[in-house]
């Protein structure tokens, strides 16, 4: 537990010291949302809500990939990853710390995205927006779990930055479907009950991928 806290704390310290990850993620989310506004030219009402939900999740996926890549490749400077692997640090604890860091970065970026989404898609800051927060948090956790594991692979390969989106996107589809549906319902004013089935899918997704990452990360992190 000590090691997990130490690694996470170190990552957060590095971030605060000018890691610029949260800024980069926020900027990327902003740009994605801008592009999608021009792409969909949404009106108000239900169509606007659906477009807004979709845009939010597109931003989540793109910023998530960046976040996970950065959280993992922060260890490549000066070869620190090797030092971590040689230390008594449990591989699973390393995964948990990287996952937590990626999740925190993503959450900050998501908060910014939600605000921007409300502004760009002409929505209101009301209970409907609050109701999509659980879906977004669950989605961010699931994506962080998935992407951290895959980033462990892609950061080791030359030209590997193609591998991460190539694998992460199809794998994320179930959570993406559930997340967009839940968000669109929430923004459309649906009561919490309607969101329940989608949230259950998200929870199942999260449980499976956090467990899988936890068990498999050691095979990814070992040196050649």
């Amino acid at each position, binding site marked *: 537990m000590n090691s997990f806290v130490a690694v996470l704390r170190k990552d957060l310290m590095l971030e605060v010291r000018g890691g610029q990850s949260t800024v980069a993620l926020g900027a990327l989310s902003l740009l994605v949302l801008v592009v999608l506004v021009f792409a969909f030219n949404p009106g108000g009402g239900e169509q606007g809500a659906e477009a807004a939900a979709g845009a939010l999740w597109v931003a989540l996926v793109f910023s998530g990939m960046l976040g996970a890549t950065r959280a993992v490749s922060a260890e490549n400077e000066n070869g620190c990853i090797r030092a971590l692997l040689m230390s008594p640090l449990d591989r699973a604890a390393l995964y948990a710390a990287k996952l937590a860091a990626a999740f925190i970065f993503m959450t900050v970026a998501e908060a910014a995205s939600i605000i921007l989404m409300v502004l760009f898609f002409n929505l209101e800051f009301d209970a409907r927006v609050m109701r999509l927060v659980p879906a977004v948090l669950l989605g961010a956790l699931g994506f962080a779990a998935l992407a951290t594991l895959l980033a462990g692979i892609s950061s080791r390969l030359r030209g*590997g930055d193609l591998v991460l989106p190539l694998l992460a996107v199809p*794998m994320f589809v179930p959570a993406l*479907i559930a997340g967009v549906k839940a968000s669109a319902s929430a923004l459309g004013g649906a009561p919490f009950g309607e969101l329940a089935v989608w949230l259950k899918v998200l929870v199942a997704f999260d449980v499976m991928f956090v467990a899988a990452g936890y068990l498999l990360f050691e095979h990814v992190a070992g040196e050649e």
Partner: protein
Amino acid sequence: MNDRAVRLGLGLVTLALMLVALYMVFVYVPTEADQGIVQRIFYFHVPCAWVAFASFALVAIAGIFYLWLGQQVWDDLGYAAAETGMVFCTLVLVTGSIWAKPIWGAWWTWDSRLTTTLILWLLYGGYLMLRAMAGDSEQGARFGAVVGIVAAIDVPIVIVSVRLWRTIHPAVLVTRQGGHGLEDPRMVATLLVSLAAFTALFIWILCLRFVTLRMHTRLGALARTLALAEAAAHD
């Protein structure tokens, strides 16, 4: 075990089953009332789908054994299964498309089964690209095993979520009914024979590919031994 004899045997069995299946699909089975002749594609489409999904499970199982036991043979099996499965997965999408066009007038429908197969196809593609990028190394084998396992546990949840997506929100185009509701026993028989034929085809191709990969592994080991002997001779 005589590799050649096994491969030849499998090949002959496959050929026999395929000939029977082709006869049944094109001659024996009656034309379906609603969809006409095009419906016969169903007898290719479904077996390919079964093979594609089964192959994917095989990739994951091989991956688990590779990570557990560390023996290269498991990785060779997994890689062979991925390549072979990819071919059949592509066939599912192509036959699905050919089937869709005359029936619904569109080259693609987002119905739950085709969508799930598309995701599977993307996962296969990702796996193969990863292996290509990682090259011929132990690292590539390990990464492949991890991805194979994670992707395989993803598939059930993809199936569930896509089905929910398609039922709770009505499909834009008509949902395909095919697959069940085969009234005529001749249709059932044809489907079963076709399943057997395509499974045999899959196993035969898988074996061919697997044997090739095994040879490649052995060649690598020989090259290493040779290089060591050469270096020793120069000392």
